[in-house]
Structure formats: C-alpha cells, structure tokens
C-alpha cells in the first residue's frame, strides 16, 4: 500500500516531512483510513523528534544548515568576484597586447635577429657584424632605469591629464572629459611611454634568463627614452591648453566630418541605409558633444570671451563645410534626422482615416527627413554664444561673431540654402533686437550701429546670394545633365550642387528611369524630358527664392526697424532702415534677374504640366511697397535724428535719411501718388532745415566758413524738391504744390523777420554758381532734373520744340499750363531749374518779398512763364480767328 502524500510530489527532507505529517500521524481517523501500522519508521522518527535529544539534534542541524549556506554564499560571491576579475584581467591583457607585441617586435628585431645572423654567419663563414659590445651590468642598469623612468613619467603625465579633466571639466559630461584624453599627441605620448617601459622590461627579463645583452636594443631604448623625456615638458605645457574647451572641439568636428564623408557620393557605402543611420548617430552624438562644450564655455566665468568666440567660429566653420558637402547626400538618406509631419485629415489617405475612426487613435505622422538638422543645431549653438557675449557686454566679440554669422549665411545662400540662411539671420536678429531694446542707447552708440550694420549685411545674404546662385551660371549648365540620368549613374547626379527641390525631382526621375530600364530593358526616355524635369525643379527653386527674398526684406529690415522705433531707438532704427532701402534695391534687381532666368527655363518646358507664374511681378510690387514703408518709417524718425548730436564720430544718419526722403518724394510725384506725401515732405523739410542750421553753426567757427556753402546746398535741395512739387502739380493737376505751399507758409509764419527770411532763401538762388557742382546735393538735383524732363516726355510734351526744326515734326498741342509750357529742356536737362521755379512761383509771390530785388534766375523764370503765356494767348487768338473761316 502506498501512503498518500498530501503535500505533493516534490521530494522533501524526511525530517521536514515528518514535521508536516504531525497532524496526520496524530489523527486516528487518518490512521484508520490508511491502515498505517503504529510501529513503522515514520512514527518512530516523529517520536524521536519530540524527545530532548531530538530537539538538540534539530538545533544543531539548523546551525549547521545556516553555516553551510553562509559558506556557500560567500564562496558564490568570491566566485563571482573572481569571474569579474578574470574578465578584467582579460581586458587588461587585451589592452596590453598591442604594446607587448610592439615590444616583442622591437626585442626580436634588436636581439634575436642579430644573434641569429651571427650564428648563421659563424656556420656559413659570412662576415660577422661588428656590433659594439655592451657591459652586462650597464645594460641591466640602463634597462632598469629606463623602465622605472618611463613608468614614472606615465604616471605623472596621466596625473596631469586627470588634473585637467577633474578641475576644468569637473561639471561636464563624461564624453567631454574623454575628449581630453583623446588628444592625439597625448595618446601617442602615453603609448610611447608604455612601449618604452615594456621594451625595457622585456630586455631586462631576457638578460635575467642569460641571454646576452644587445647593444642595438640598448641604443633603441635609449633613443625612445630620450624622446619621451624631451617631449615631457612641451606636452606637459600643452596640457594646459586643454583647459580651453575650444581646443578640444577638433575631435568631435573630425568625427562628424568623417561620418559625413561616408554618406556623400564619395563614401563607399553611401547608399546603404545601415551606414547612413550609423553616420547619423555619430553626427548626433558629436553635435551633442559640441553643444555640451558650448554650454561649458558659456557657463564658466572668464575675463575674456575668446573661448566662446573660438567655439562659435569652429561651429560656423563646420556649418560652412557641411553645407558644401550636403548637396551630395541623397534626399532620403538616413543621414538626415527624421521629423514628424502631420497630415491634414482632409488630405490623408482613406485607409488611414478609416483606421483612425475605428480605433479612436489619431493618424500617425509621417517621418520626413529634416534636411537642415545640422544647420539648425549650429544656429542654436551660435545664438547661445551670441546671447552670452551680449550678456557679458563683449560687443566687439559680438561683432566678430556676427561677421562669422554673415560668412555662414553667405555660404548657405550660395549653396541653395536660402531657408537655412534666413533662419540663421533671423535668430541673430531676434537676439540683437532684444539687446538693442534693453540696452542704454547713449552707451557706445557707434558699437550699436556697428552691430546693426553687420546684422543687416548678413541679412542681405539670402537676398543676394540665393538669387546669384540660380542666375550666375548659364542655363545650360544648370539644366543639361541628362547624360548621368540616361546612363543611370547615380554618383553623377550629385556631382554638381543643386537646390534640394531640384535634387528631389531628379532623384524621383532617376528611380522612374530605373523602373523603365527594368521593365523595358532599355531607357527610351529622351534627353529633352530629363532637361524639362530639371528645369521645372529650378523654376520651383526660383519661385521659392523670390518668396524668400520678400520674406527677408519684411522680417529682417522692415519689422525690426519698426520695433526699434517703437522702443525709442531712432539711431539704430535709422541705420536699419537705410540698409532696408539697400535691401529693397538689391531685391528688385535680383528679382528681375530671376525673372529673366525663369523665362529662359520656360524654353525647356514642353509637356502639358502647367508652367506657373514666377511671382516676380507681385514680388516687385511688394518690394516697392516695402520701400515706401521704409521711407515712411524714416520720416517718422527724422525729428529724433535732428535732435541727435551732429559730428563725425557717428555715421551721418540724418544726411542719408534726407537723401532717401527726397528720392522717394520725387518718385511719388512721378507716380502721382499723393497719399503720405505730406508727412514725407514735412520730414524732409525739417531734416533739410536741421542740416542747414547745423552747417550755418559750423560755419561760425574759425576756419570753417566754407560750410556755409554746404548749408546753401541743403537750402537749394529743399527749394528744388518744392519746385518740383509745384511743377508736377501744374503738369498733372495733382495737389503736391498745395502741400508744399502750406508747409512753407507755416514756416514763414514762425519767422519774426519775414523779409529777411525771404532774402536768406533768395541768397542760394543768387549765388548758386559759386557752390560746388559735384557735391552730393548738386548731383542729386541734376538727377531730379533729368527725371522731370523724362516725366514731361512721358506725358507727351514736346520738350525739343525750342531747338529742333518744326516743319518735319508732328505738331503737338502745348500743355495748357503756361508754367509747364515755359520749361525749356536742352539735352535732357531743364534750362531753368525747379528751385528757380520755386523762387519764382512761391518766394517772389509772397507779400514779404515785395520790394526785394529778385535774383536773376527767378527773373529768367518769370520771363519764361510770361513768354509762354503770351504764346498761348497768340495761339488762342489765331485759333479763334481761324474757326469762322473754316465754318
């Protein structure tokens, strides 16, 4: 009979089973049921356990169990430790293998080979080498000394590096600290020391086993020991340079560049996704390392900011190098970090939306390549540096950094990276505007203007160079790359830099041609089709660049200037606005060039795909609107500029502003644009009077009397613009003249001695021939005069009637206004100038001018007007007489 085991089938120690069976043993029912015999061994054991001996035995057993288990645990731990130690020992051996092998090679070369040769020479009768003999004692002494010295230097040098790492780099990540030890010279030096010690040790060991001393080995050991000794000091001193984080940037940069080269067209496995992914991970790691270094650089308190500047310079250098290589990386390469792109529900695929509706989970975003991830990281780091420099008031360094930013922005823009260039410039602008708004405007104004100027120059890069990169090469050089396509040569696809949108189209076409080849066996697609696809890509690039140009003008010139004006920073705003006018001018030129290139590209377009408008026409109109807005903003800051101290220590913002305002006023007259003319004219009026006052005051100083001519030039400018307004009003029936007269009336009302004021304004008209004819004002006035003459021609007025014979020309009806009719144009220049007309029409007509002798120029003008009036009267009389006859 088998006894039922209520515990289970698992084997247990019999004592434990006995304990667990107590209740069964005691239970008579169980005994009856199982028919167990009382005298069996289980019951005997139970009874034994209940006795005193049994209890003592149990206690002893428990103690023995505890001791045994503890001993087992201790042994287990020791075994684990030994295992770890064994692993570590193996690692140590692995580390030491290379130095040992090198040492073995050295000893073999210098001891074994000569000994072998001598043995062979003796046997075969060759000439025996006459090596210098070395004393065994000296040999062992040399080896022992070199071995000890090398070990000591090893320890010392490593200690020095450890000191650098543990003091300067105590608060940075381990990866940054590792860079210190990864310095090329340090690593090589440490290895050389280890090699020297190992060779000396092996040499000594060989000598200990009765191998005769080798003089060559001794010489070798002496030479490398000497090198180590001599290099110790320079390298030790050089170790101090590692306190500067900018000196360790070369290692992450080198690793990144190496990873980058692997994924460009020159890399061996550049199309392999695993290699691309690996290169991306290295790049990400190195960029993080650089970011750590930047944070370390800007968090440490340093008296000078050269470290930060050097870091930023390295980063910008990297960015410039990268952008030159980037165009030879395929667009879908895993080198580019992926970013999420969420699709609009309405344009997502139905399967995606169906799944979303059924599961309640939003459609997942697409992972698209971020083609600007390196540039964006570099921009972030650069801006961190710039912000730090502003915080530390290192303005000169900030200017240097902005110049570096400018170079980077130019490099981006030249290599079709307008968007990256704009992002870089925009980030710099945000920091700079914040700085200008919060800093004291009177503190170091020149440096502030320098900052603005450098920033604006950088902001011109996306306008100038992006367009230039698309227009400077012949259109054939851009488009005619069909050979590489039709031979399915992928590397040739990346042999020339193209905008990313062109590359994407080209890569797509390439895949389609591969499909064609695999389907048809040959490529039947014609070269014209390939050229068309590339031309379409370039057309898209041009449209994008035009949009980018507009965005740059608005965000980088108009908006910051407006912000600065609101923040009461007129000087900086003025500098920004003047660069803005330059930007508008350049934008206009570039857009026109791009439009011409766009028309050339259209010649390559054959199929029915729509050829979109370039957007140049709208863009030019917007640029014109931006320019008008900038001039209006300039007019707003004129009162502040007039109050600013005039001198040569700062740029002449007022003078430039006055010139731009005048240009805009003349343009508005040409365009018959009356809105905003009043504000602009008042600004110009005030600016001209401020300039006049300034130079009159300067002329009071001894030796500067000639400045009075400059003041008179400014007066002539104002009268010229006023005269132009009066003439254009007569010409087109506009109200510019009314605005001018109203302004001048207000000016005269404030004068206490009005006749004297009239005489003062007559003076430049009377003595204008004594003024310099090639001054900036005189040249600008000549330009306005030519524009007036051109406006007369454009409006159909026969300006040559006074000089050319009339019989062979069609008779043109003279202008009804005798004033306009009186204007005589000779070779594109009016004989009587607009300021003379202003004197004749306004100054001479004032009541305060009665009795004051008129300057000859005004008299000539009045005579011309009177003659024109008489001519018109005669013509009217002739017409009136002729009409009844004809009836």
């Amino acid at each position, binding site marked *: 009979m088998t006894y039922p085991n209520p515990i289970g089938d698992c084997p247990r120690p019999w004592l434990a089973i006995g304990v667990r069976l107590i209740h069964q043993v005691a239970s008579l029912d169980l005994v009856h049921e199982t028919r167990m015999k009382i005298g069996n061994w289980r019951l005997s054991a139970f009874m034994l356990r209940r006795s005193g001996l049994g209890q003592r035995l149990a206690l002893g057993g428990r103690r023995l169990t505890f001791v045994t288990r503890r001993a087992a645990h201790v042994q287990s731990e020791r075994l684990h430790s030994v295992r770890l130690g064994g692993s570590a020992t193996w690692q140590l051996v692995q580390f030491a293998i290379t130095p040992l092998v090198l040492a073995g090679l050295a000893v073999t070369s210098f001891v074994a080979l000569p000994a072998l040769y001598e043995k062979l020479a003796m046997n075969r009768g060759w000439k025996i080498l006459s090596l210098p003999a070395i004393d065994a004692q000296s040999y062992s002494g040399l080896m022992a000394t070199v071995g000890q010295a090398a070990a000591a230097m090893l320890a010392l040098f490593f200690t020095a590096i450890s000191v650098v790492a543990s003091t300067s780099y105590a608060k940075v990540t381990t990866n940054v600290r590792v860079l210190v030890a990864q310095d090329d010279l340090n690593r090589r030096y440490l290895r050389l020391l280890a090699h020297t010690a190992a060779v000396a040790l092996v040499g000594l060991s060989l000598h200990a086993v009765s191998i005769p001393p080798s003089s060559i080995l001794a010489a070798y050991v002496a030479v490398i020991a000497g090198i180590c000794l001599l290099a110790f000091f320079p390298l030790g001193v050089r170790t101090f340079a590692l306190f500067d984080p900018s000196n360790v940037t070369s290692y992450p940069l080198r690793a990144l560049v190496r990873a980058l080269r692997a994924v460009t067209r020159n890399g061996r496995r550049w199309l392999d996704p695993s290699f691309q992914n690996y290169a991306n991970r290295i790049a990400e790691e190195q960029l993080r390392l650089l970011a750590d270094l930047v944070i370390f650089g800007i968090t440490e308190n340093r008296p000078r900011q050269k470290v930060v500047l050097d870091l930023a310079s390295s980063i910008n250098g990297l960015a410039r190098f990268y952008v030159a290589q980037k165009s030879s990386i395929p667009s879908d390469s895993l080198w580019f970090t992926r970013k999420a792109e969420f699709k609009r529900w309405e344009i997502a695929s139905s399967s995606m939306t169906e799944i979303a509706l059924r599961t309640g989970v939003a459609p997942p975003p697409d992972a698209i390549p971020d083609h600007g991830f390196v540039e964006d990281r570099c921009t972030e780091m650069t801006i961190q540096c710039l912000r730090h420099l502003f915080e530390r008031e290192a303005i000169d360094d900030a200017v240097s950094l902005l110049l570096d930013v400018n170079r980077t922005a130019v490099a981006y823009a030249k290599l079709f990276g307008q968007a990256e260039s704009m992002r870089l410039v925009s980030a710099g602008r945000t920091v700079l505007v914040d700085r200008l708004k919060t800093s004291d405007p009177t503190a170091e104004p020149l440096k502030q203007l320098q900052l603005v100027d450098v920033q604006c120059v950088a902001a011109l890069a996306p306008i100038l160079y992006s367009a230039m990169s698309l227009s400077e090469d012949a259109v054939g050089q851009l488009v005619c790359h069909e050979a590489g396509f039709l031979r399915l040569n992928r590397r040739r696809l990346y042999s020339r830099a193209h905008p990313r949108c062109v590359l994407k189209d080209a890569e797509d076409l390439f*895949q389609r041609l591969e499909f064609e080849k695999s389907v048809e066996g040959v490529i039947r697609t014609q070269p014209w089709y390939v050229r068309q696809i590339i031309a379409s890509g370039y057309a898209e690039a041009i449209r994008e660049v035009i949009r980018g140009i507009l965005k740059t003008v608005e965000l980088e010139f108009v908006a910051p200037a407006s912000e600065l004006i609101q923040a009461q920073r007129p000087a900086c705003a003025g500098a920004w606005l003047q660069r803005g006018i330059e930007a508008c001018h350049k934008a206009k030129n570039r857009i026109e060039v791009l439009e011409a290139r766009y028309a050339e590209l259209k010649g390559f377009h054959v199929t029915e795909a729509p050829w979109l408008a370039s957007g140049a026409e709208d863009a030019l109109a917007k640029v014109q609107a931006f320019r008008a807005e900038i001039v209006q903003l300039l007019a707003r800051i004129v009162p502040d500029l007039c109050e600013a101290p005039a001198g040569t220590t700062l740029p002449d913002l007022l003078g430039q502003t006055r010139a731009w305002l005048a240009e805009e006023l003349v343009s508005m007259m040409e365009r018959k644009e009356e809105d905003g003319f009043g504000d602009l004219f008042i600004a110009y009026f005030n600016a001209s009077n401020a300039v006049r006052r300034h130079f009159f005051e300067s002329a009071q100083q001894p030796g500067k009397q000639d400045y009075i001519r400059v003041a008179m030039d400014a007066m002539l400018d104002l009268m010229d613009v006023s005269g132009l307004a009066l003439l254009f009003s007569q010409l087109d029936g506009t109200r510019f003249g009314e605005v001018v007269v109203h302004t001048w009336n207000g000016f005269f009302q404030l004068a206490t001695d009005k006749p004297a004021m009239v005489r003062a304004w007559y003076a430049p008209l009377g003595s204008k021939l004594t003024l310099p004819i090639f001054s900036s004002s005189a040249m600008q006035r000549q330009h306005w005069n030519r524009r007036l003459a051109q406006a007369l021609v454009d409006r159909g007025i026969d300006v040559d009637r006074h000089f050319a014979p009339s019989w062979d020309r069609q008779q043109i009806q003279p202008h009804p206004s005798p004033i306009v009719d009186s204007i005589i144009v000779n070779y594109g220049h009016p004989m009587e100038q607009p300021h003379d007309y202003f004197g004749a029409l306004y100054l001479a007509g004032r009541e305060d001018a009665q009795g004051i002798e008129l300057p000859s120029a005004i008299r000539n003008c009045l005579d011309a007007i009177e003659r024109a009036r008489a001519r018109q009267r005669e013509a009217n009389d002739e017409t009136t007489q002729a009409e009844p006859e004809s009836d």
Partner: protein
Amino acid sequence: MRRRRPSQSQTDLDWDGRAARWPRGLGGLVPGGDSNLWMCAQDVETEIWAHFHRLEQRFGRYDVEPLRLDTCSDKLRDLLIESVPFNEHREDLSGAVANFAKMVAQEFVIDGLMPFEVQAGWNQSARSPRPEGVRLVFVYPESMKKLGPWLFQIVPPHENHESTESRVVRLDPERIVTFEPPRYYRQALAQMRSGFRWIGRSQHEWMMKAGTEQMQEDFKAVTRSYNVCRARLSAPIGWDGRGSFQDHVADFHWALRRLRWQRFCIEIRDGILTTLAKVFTRIGEWRGESPHLVWEHLPTLEQVQHAESQLVGGIVRFDEVFKAFSFPSR
C-alpha cells in the same frame, strides 16, 4: 441609339450548324482567373469601344459612319448585321460590329483566340437555294481538336446527356472562322496570361502579411517588385495597369506605353475587322454578292507613328500628342 429586338423572322429557319455549346465556368473568381488579366481584357474592350464611340453623337448616331458595306444589297446588309453576335441589339452596322469587336478583343486577352462557326439558316418552305439567315456561333477553343485535315469538337460527358463518355462532333473547317490577334502579339499575350496568373497567386498572401505586420521585408520594395513584374509582362502591349505604375513610371515612359497600347488596340481592332470582312464576303458569296467591309475615321497606326515621332522629338505638348486618341468632351 438604334437597338433592335431579337429577330422573330429567323425562328422558323433550319440552322445547319454542328458545334455544341454548354455553360462554361469563368476559370476562377474572375474571368481569366486573375484580376490583372481581367482588368487588361476590360481595358482592351473599352479602348476598342472608344475608337467607335468617339465618333458617336447622342442616341448612338454617328457624325460619320466608321464602317460601311460596299457593293452590298440592303437585304444582305441586314442579314450580316444580324449575323454578328454580341451586338447588344444594335441595328446599325457600326454599333453592332463595335460591340462584337470589343468582346472578341477581350477574349483575345483572356483566351488568346475566339473561333466561331458560321451557321446558315434555311427556309425549307421557301425552297430557296440561298440561306435566309446567318449567325456566328462561338465555339469554345479548348473543345476543338484538329486532326490532320479534320476538325472535331469534344463535348464533355456531363453535357452529353446521352452517355457518360465524351461525344465527338466533326466540324466543317470551311465553316469555322477563328479570330486571332496578330502573330507577333500571340506569344506576348500568352506570357502575360501565364505570368499574371502566376504572380497573382502570391499577392493575396503577402498583402495579408503586410496588414498583420508579419512581413519581414519592406512593403514598398515588395510592391515595387510586384509592379515591375506586372509592367514587364504587359510591356509588349503597353497596358498601364490602370495607373498602378504611376508611382514608378516617368511621364515620358508612360506616354510611350500609352502609344504602344494604342498601337496594340488598333492592330487588334483591324485584325478583327479584317477577319470579319472575310466572313462577310463568304456569306455574301452564298447569296451571290460580294460585300466589302470598309472602315475609316478610326485611329490608325500612322497616327500612332506620327505621335511617337512627335513625342521623341519633344516638339509638342503631351496633350497634343494624344489628341488623336483622346475622347472628345461633350
């Protein structure tokens, strides 16, 4: 559209045909046993129908008749129109032949050929030596066996109610007319039939695996390979897979294939019409006439050649290239 009711006048005729017909399966879930094959067949059918239909105005009237029968009496003309099967009850010659041609073309893709027995209907009471009716009866190609100069039809046992064995019917080769695609397309179509059926079997499996994320490969790469196979198989005829190659094919290549497709459809259509013209001539001879089927104003091979040269030269827009084959908007 002029449609006619089934002819009542032919019900009392005695027909002299021998070929037997019985219900035949589709050969799979879709006709032809593969969805790609069936789509291709439908597309050929539609294209040939479009050749005619683009000349049609409202209610089935043609501006210019694409088909006409020269030297043919009205009686014979009606008889010939009635003889054309699959005519969808069109009374006009062009409509009837167009519907017939599209069905035959579809069968070319699915089975490779389409034999008919020309059966004549005789009016015993009229004692006329001329047949009063003619009809073309489709003979299943797989049931026909040629043995030397003789031609037989094997009727399967389940259709042969008289015995459990197959019945053999001797056919008159003179009465059998076989519509076949041009010789140089036959091998391509045969390869396409077998190829589509073969690769089509795996499609369901790998697509289902992709849906359940059991697939170890890149789904896009598998799809591309599948499309490459389909495009290679259909390359000789230029079928575009109903736009399923659109993600892989360049516009120029697509245009070339489309012209090749047009060439295929035109040659198929002309082949069918040529054979039908011969049939009409033979029937006409039975009645002492010699009718001549003429077709014009339909897309031609010359137009395809011209379009190809224009395309290669890159001198006109794509829509200009395809203007001759496009369907005019109404």
